[in-house]
């Protein structure tokens, strides 16, 4: 009996050890290594040999208008894309939560983008938005409206990127909201209906408050994903035109993997990491459940 009790004391460790060890080794140690790397330069010395430069990389980051600009663009982008995607995902979830004939088919179709990789999405949409040959301009012309430059003009490029990533993002996040909506007990909705609340009233004053925790979760996850958005920029716009889609991760990629300056790239990523954590903290505080 005593033996068994002793064994039980180690049970939590047994259950936790694999996950915690793996997280520390493969998630946290690289973060620390990244911060450390930001204090060195290796772009100017022999292979692998590094030189300690203190905070020089950070100073360089703050002095460079291109890096600085990429932070500003990312900030504006985040402030637009996150509420937009969360809002549209909520509406889409409400739409596919309607109990009408054939809804299962639509739900299945809406699930498809979730499974498609960013590479394929980027190829398809990059072409669809081509100024001369794109499908979208073809439709616009058919409607008798003037052609749009989309990815070719600084005033539309970032919006086009937002549209492309929302093609995947909105259906994806709406899955979470759909799960939440289906979890709301029908008694609550029934009593609202008896009180004479319309669908809009019910959505705003009954459903939204009940979804608060999911909204917080989705908003935070979406924020993290979009702060580190890279693939569509790399594959479609390469930061242009006129740096209008030059997001931080793309600048970090350029510094690290094109120019070969891992130190500066690490400094940019370290700053980004701090910004992300700060942003998420604010979102948590704002959306904290009130008792």
């Amino acid at each position, binding site marked *: 009996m005593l033996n068994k009790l002793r*064994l039980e004391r180690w*049970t*939590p*460790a047994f*259950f*936790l050890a*694999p*996950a*915690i060890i*793996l*997280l*520390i*080794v*493969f*998630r946290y*140690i*690289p*973060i620390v*290594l*990244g911060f450390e*790397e930001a204090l060195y330069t290796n772009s100017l010395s022999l292979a692998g040999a590094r030189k300690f430069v203190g905070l020089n990389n950070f100073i360089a980051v703050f002095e460079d208008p291109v890096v600085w600009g990429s932070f500003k663009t990312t900030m504006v982008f985040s402030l637009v894309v996150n509420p937009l995607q969360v809002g549209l995902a909520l509406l*889409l979830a409400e*739409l*596919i939560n309607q109990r*009408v004939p054939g809804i299962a088919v639509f*739900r299945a179709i809406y*699930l*498809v983008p*979730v*499974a*498609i*990789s960013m*590479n*394929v999405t980027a190829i398809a949409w990059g*072409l*669809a938005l081509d100024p*001369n*040959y*794109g*499908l979208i301009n*073809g439709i616009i012309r058919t409607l008798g409206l003037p052609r749009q430059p989309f990815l070719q003009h600084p005033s539309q490029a970032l919006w086009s990127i937002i549209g492309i990533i929302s093609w995947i993002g909105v*259906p994806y996040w709406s*899955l979470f909201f759909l*799960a*939440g909506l*289906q*979890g*709301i007990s029908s008694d609550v909705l029934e009593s609202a209906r008896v009180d004479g609340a319309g669908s809009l009233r019910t959505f705003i004053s009954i459903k939204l408050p*009940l979804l608060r925790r999911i909204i917080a979760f989705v908003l935070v*996850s979406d924020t*993290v*994903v979009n702060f*580190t958005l890279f693939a569509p920029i790399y594959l479609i716009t390469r930061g242009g035109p006129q740096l209008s889609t030059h997001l931080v*991760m793309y600048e970090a990629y350029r510094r*690290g993997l094109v120019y070969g300056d891992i130190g500066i*790239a*690490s400094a940019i*990523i370290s700053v980004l*990491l701090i910004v992300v954590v700060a942003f*998420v903290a604010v979102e948590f505080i704002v959306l904290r459940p009130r008792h």
Partner: protein
Amino acid sequence: MNRDHTTLLRLRKARRYILLYVLLIAIAIAIILPISWIVASSFTTRETVWKNVLPFSWRAFFPADFTLDGYHAIFEKDFGRALLNTFFLGAVTVVFGIAVGAMSGFAFARLQFRAKNFLFALVIFSFMIPGDLTIIPSFVLVRDLGWLGTWQGLIVPGLANGIIIFLFRQFFAEIPQDLIDAPRVDGATWLQVFMRIILPVSKPALISAGVILFLGQWNNFFWPLLVAPDPELRVVQVAVSIIGVEQQVSLWEQMFASSTLAMLVPVLLILPFQRYYVGGILGSGLKG
């Protein structure tokens, strides 16, 4: 008077239905169009693949001249190997990833121990920091472990996943206490409770976790490219990026054929599990 009222209600309802279906269909088209273009293009020849696209016409959504050339060509280039590799990678990741995630999720949901809040914060914080941010130090770490060009280099770093742990914790937390108390009183160990009681009732969570882990591996591109560019270990997304271009020229029919297969597999996987996938997230206790 009463009949008028009913007609009005019915009219209103019909209008609502029409509006609803117009919306549903419009969104469905926006989702299907780009995909059907890729699929249709995969069945054309290289010479005709752009004929209906320059400029774009509705014909682009149907193969201009049906052929399987693209598919034949990619399987000659060992695309089958890449598919198998990725299935293997996905399967192993799912099995071990679920084991690691479910065990720790169980501990967080049901066991008492010191530093629980701190350790759980460690889990939560880990998925606030996407792996992309630390890809270079991760590469150096894996290299120093001697894992470049190996299966474990592709698998092990992704096994512990904060979202999976979180999902299991939330799901397990809602399992009724009675289910656990009975065998505990009978002297079952926690491991026995976990294997015999918890896992069998957690199908939705297991499936959700499995789908998330598998999709993650399937759509993974940069990490496998970095850790294992060897042809023997080539995965689907890397194969797609290589097969599409040769001699500085795009082999369109092959690019589209490989893209089609690369997206078909996860779609086929996710559709039958749709109910569970949503159910698993639902069970994650985020509701209300």
